């Protein structure tokens, strides 16, 4: 336990020095502001684009538009940016040899993986949590309507998805000795899950539901119980992948 804690401290120091914390903070705060901003500007932008000759009445934006933008940003750019930031986490240390000293001095190998995993999951939760709270604040202020009744429910699946996605990035970074392997493997897994979604029978069990069904959850057109099987698969898959990562790292020559 103390070994994990030691390495955990080192991980945070590295995240700070590599500007990872700065990048995540700035980007996710920007995402948090951008969602309500886009929702608010959309009718005006349409008016500017169409000009005055069209006198059609454009519908006013609602809180649901703001959340649509938020989940689009998060699931299409946000989670991949997180994957990119975590991408070299193991491979970089293996290629630069910084782990050799620590491990020969008795740091257990599993502690490296578990500390890296936990630090990355916490960064995931905080990054997405911060941008969520900012969007929530602006949306409640600018769009005080009843179009999105389950705002606080819909964010949990995204946070849970992090358990799985971070494990995949870590596995990629452990198996392949390239700085971008973690990201590429994660993107490949994400694309495969998206393809798998065309098979109707597995839809409810597919982890990708956790980042694609959020808007329906916000609007209340889908109940959270609908994606509970997918939540179960996500957590189970995360544990298995983490186990495989530790096993792979144990076999690896440093």
């Amino acid at each position: 336990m103390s070994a994990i804690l030691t390495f955990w401290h080192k991980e945070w120091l590295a995240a700070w020095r590599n500007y990872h914390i700065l990048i995540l903070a700035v980007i996710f705060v920007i995402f948090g502001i951008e969602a309500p901003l886009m929702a608010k500007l959309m009718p005006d932008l349409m008016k500017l684009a169409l000009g005055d000759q069209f006198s059609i009445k454009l519908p006013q934006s609602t809180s649901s538009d703001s959340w649509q933008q938020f989940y689009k940003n998060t699931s299409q750019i946000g989670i991949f940016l997180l994957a990119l930031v975590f991408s070299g986490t193991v491979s970089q240390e293996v290629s630069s040899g910084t782990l050799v000293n620590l491990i020969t001095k008795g740091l257990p190998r599993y502690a490296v993986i578990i500390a890296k995993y936990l630090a990355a999951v916490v960064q995931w939760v905080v990054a997405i949590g911060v941008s969520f709270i900012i969007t929530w604040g602006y949306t409640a202020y600018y769009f005080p309507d009843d179009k999105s009744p389950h705002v606080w429910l819909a964010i949990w699946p995204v946070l849970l998805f992090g358990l799985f996605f971070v494990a995949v990035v870590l596995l990629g970074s452990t198996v392949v000795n390239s700085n971008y392997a973690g990201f590429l493997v994660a993107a490949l897994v994400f694309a495969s899950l998206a393809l798998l979604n065309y098979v109707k029978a597995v839809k409810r069990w597919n982890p990708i539901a956790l980042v694609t069904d959020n808007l329906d959850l916000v609007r209340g057109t889908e109940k959270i119980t609908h994606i509970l099987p997918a939540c179960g698969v996500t957590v189970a898959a995360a544990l298995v992948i983490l186990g495989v990562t530790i096993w792979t790292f144990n076999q690896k020559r440093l």
Partner: protein
Amino acid sequence: MHNSELFFNNLPLFVPLMFLELGLLIAALISLYRRQTVRHGNRLIWTLAIVFIQPFGAIAYFIFGREVD
């Protein structure tokens, strides 16, 4: 409806965005000019990317361009 009107009607949203992007731009430029080398390309290319492609130029610099010490 003019562009400036759009801007001034939404100040509480635009002002924090501008500060964030400016902060990121300054941090990236300081980091870039403190080091002698970059990983891909050269300093001029990264300077242009950081200044003109906001905010992704700065993010790309920190992830791909910054020489790890």
